[in-house]
C-alpha cells in the first residue's frame, strides 16, 4: 500500500467526507470552511519540519500510551462509519442491522485476510470512479453546469417537496430521520399515514401550546397548520404533500447561500480539532516524507474530494430539496438525488454505484487504519495490526454500538480530538532527548482535559466561550498538553 493511499484512506473516512456535503447543505459558509479545513489540515500536519514525525516517545510506556490512544481512536472511527452504514440502510428502507452487518463483516474480513490487505489503492480508485459516475450522470441529466445549478439553487424562493419524492409518493417512516432540526411546519400541510399509526404533534393554538396525539387508520390524513411541530421518533410511515415547504429547510435559496451569523469559536474549534487529529492520525510516530509527485497526488486527491462534495451538494439540493426534512444528515448524500431524473433500472444501477463508492471508501479506511496502528506498535513489532482476535473484537464492538443511532460526525470529532490531545503536542514539539516520558505526561494531561470537557458536552452546558470549549474539547485539551510540555522543557534546560 503506497504512503499516499494510506494517508488518504486513513483521513477520508466516509463519515468525514460526507460531513462536508451535510454541512454545505445546512449552511453554505460553514460547509465551505469545513471542506477547506479538511483539505488543508492534513497538508499542514504533514508539512511540519521533516523528521519531527519520528519523535514519538521511544520508551515502552510511551509507546504503549500512543498505541492505546490510537487504538481507541480507530475504534471510534470504525464506530462512526459503521453507524453511518446503519443510518444509510434505514434511510433506504432496509433494516438498520443489515447495513451494520455488511460493513462490519466486510471490514473485518479485509483486515484479517492477509492477501487482501494491499487492496487499499484499488479500493480508493473504485470509490473515485463509483462516486464520480453518478455525479456526472446527474449533471448531464439535469442539463445544468455547476455554476448554473448553483445559481438555480440560490434562486429558489423556497425549498418544496418535489412531486416524485419518496416522501410524497410512497411515504417513509418518520424514524428514519436523524437530523436535529425541528419538524416545524410553515404552512398548512396534510400528512397521510399509508399504513396507519400513532402521530404526535405540538400545536399552536393562538399563543397556547398543546400536545395532540392522533391514532390514524391506514390511509387516514391529518392537517397541520403553520407553527405546528411534529414529534419525531415514532415509527409511523408518512406521506407529505407535493409542492409544500420542507420542514427544516432554509427559508429560501438566498438564505442558504449567504454566510449566516459567524460563529468564530465554532470555526476555530473545527480547525484545531481536525488539525491536531491530522497530526495524530497521519504523523505521530511515523517518518512521513513526500516526494513532489506524492505530495501532488495527495493534495490533488483531497482537492478532488472537496470538489466532489461541493458539486454533489449543489445537484442534490437542486434535485431533492426533501433532503432538508428534519435537518440534513450525511447518509442522505449516498442516495442518488432526483427520483424523476432516471428510469429503472438505470436509477438502481447508479444507486449501486453510490453504495459501492461508500463501501469501498470504508474498506480502504479500515485497511489504512489497521496499518497505521501496526506501524506505531514498535515494541510489538506491528503485531497489533495483525491480531485477528483484536480486530474482530473491535469491529464487533463497533457494530454492536452502532445498533443505536449516533451522530457519525460527533463521533469522528471525538476520535480526532482525543487522539490530537493525546499525541499531537509531543509530535509537533518533541520532548528533549532522554525525556520521552514528558511526551506521555503531556498526552495524558491533554487527554484528561479533553475527556472532562467531552463528558460536559454529553451532559450539555457551557456559556459562550466555555460552550465552544465544551463543543470542541480539543480547544482546551491540546493547549493543556502543550503547556505541560513547555513547562517540562523549561525545567530540563
Amino acid at each position, binding site marked *: 500500500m503506497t504512503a499516499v493511499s494510506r494517508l488518504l484512506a486513513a483521513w477520508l473516512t466516509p463519515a468525514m467526507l460526507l460531513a462536508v456535503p451535510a454541512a454545505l447543505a445546512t449552511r453554505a*459558509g460553514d460547509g*465551505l470552511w469545513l471542506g*477547506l479545513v479538511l483539505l488543508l489540515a492534513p497538508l499542514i500536519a504533514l508539512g511540519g519540519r*521533516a523528521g519531527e514525525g519520528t519523535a514519538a516517545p521511544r520508551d515502552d510506556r510511551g509507546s504503549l500510551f500512543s498505541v492505546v490512544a490510537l487504538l481507541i481512536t480507530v475504534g471510534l472511527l470504525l464506530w462512526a462509519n459503521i453507524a453511518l452504514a446503519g443510518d444509510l440502510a434505514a434511510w433506504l428502507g432496509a433494516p438498520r442491522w443489515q447495513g451494520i452487518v455488511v460493513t462490519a463483516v466486510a471490514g473485518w474480513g479485509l483486515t484479517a485476510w492477509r492477501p487482501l490487505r494491499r487492496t487499499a489503492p484499488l479500493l480508493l480508485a473504485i470509490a473515485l470512479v463509483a462516486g464520480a459516475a453518478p455525479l456526472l450522470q446527474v449533471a448531464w441529466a439535469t442539463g445544468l453546469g455547476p455554476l448554473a445549478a448553483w445559481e438555480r439553487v440560490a434562486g429558489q424562493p423556497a425549498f418544496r417537496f418535489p412531486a416524485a419524492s419518496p416522501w410524497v409518493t410512497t411515504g417513509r417512516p418518520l424514524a428514519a430521520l436523524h437530523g436535529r432540526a425541528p419538524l416545524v411546519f410553515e404552512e398548512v400541510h396534510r400528512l397521510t399515514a399509508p399504513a396507519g399509526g400513532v402521530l404526535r404533534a405540538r400545536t399552536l393554538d393562538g399563543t397556547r401550546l398543546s400536545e395532540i396525539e392522533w391514532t390514524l387508520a391506514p390511509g387516514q390524513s391529518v392537517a397541520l397548520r403553520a407553527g405546528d411541530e411534529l414529534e419525531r421518533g415514532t415509527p409511523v410511515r408518512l406521506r407529505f404533500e407535493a409542492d409544500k415547504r420542507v420542514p427544516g429547510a432554509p427559508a429560501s435559496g438566498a438564505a442558504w447561500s449567504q454566510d449566516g451569523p459567524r460563529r468564530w469559536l465554532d470555526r476555530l474549534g473545527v480547525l484545531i480539532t481536525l488539525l491536531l487529529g491530522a497530526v495524530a492520525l497521519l504523523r505521530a510516530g511515523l517518518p512521513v516524507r513526500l516526494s*513532489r509527485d506524492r505530495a501532488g497526488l*495527495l493534495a490533488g486527491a483531497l482537492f478532488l474530494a472537496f470538489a466532489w462534495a461541493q458539486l454533489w451538494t449543489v445537484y442534490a439540493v437542486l434535485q431533492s430539496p426533501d433532503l432538508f426534512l428534519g435537518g440534513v444528515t450525511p447518509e442522505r448524500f449516498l442516495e442518488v438525488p432526483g427520483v424523476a431524473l432516471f428510469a429503472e433500472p438505470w436509477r438502481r444501477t447508479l444507486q449501486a454505484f453510490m453504495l459501492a463508492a461508500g463501501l469501498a471508501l470504508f474498506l480502504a479506511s479500515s485497511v489504512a487504519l489497521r496499518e497505521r496502528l501496526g506501524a506505531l506498535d514498535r515494541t510489538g513489532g506491528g503485531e497489533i495490526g495483525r491480531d485477528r482476535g483484536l480486530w474482530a473484537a473491535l469491529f464487533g464492538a463497533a457494530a454492536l454500538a452502532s445498533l443505536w443511532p449516533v451522530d457519525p460526525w460527533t463521533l469522528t470529532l471525538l476520535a480526532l480530538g482525543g487522539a490530537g490531545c493525546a499525541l499531537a503536542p509531543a509530535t509537533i514539539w518533541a520532548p528533549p532527548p532522554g525525556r520521552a516520558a514528558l511526551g506521555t505526561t503531556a498526552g495524558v494531561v491533554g487527554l484528561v482535559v479533553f475527556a472532562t470537557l467531552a463528558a460536559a458536552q454529553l451532559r450539555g452546558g457551557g456559556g459562550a466561550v466555555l460552550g465552544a470549549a465544551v463543543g470542541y474539547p480539543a480547544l482546551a485539551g491540546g493547549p493543556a498538553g502543550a503547556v505541560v510540555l513547555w513547562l517540562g522543557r523549561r525545567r530540563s534546560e
Partner: protein
Amino acid sequence: MRPVTPRSTGVVLLWLLLVGFLLLGALPNHTASIRLGGLPLLWWYGGVLAPLAGVLATVRWLAEPRGPRRDR
C-alpha cells in the same frame, strides 16, 4: 533561531489561506456575498481558489527536495 525552509514557507501559506477565508467572511456589508460570474466571492475563495492554491503550495513547497543525483 530556526532557519526559514521551503516547508515552513509552505505551511505559513496554507495557514494564510485559512485566515483569508475568515477575513473574507468578516468583511462588512456582506461583501463576501457579492456575486462574480454567478458565484459569491466567499464560494470562489473557499471552494475554488484557496483549495487550488493549497494544492499548488503543497507541490511547490511541502514536497521533499530531490536528493543529489548519484552517478555511477
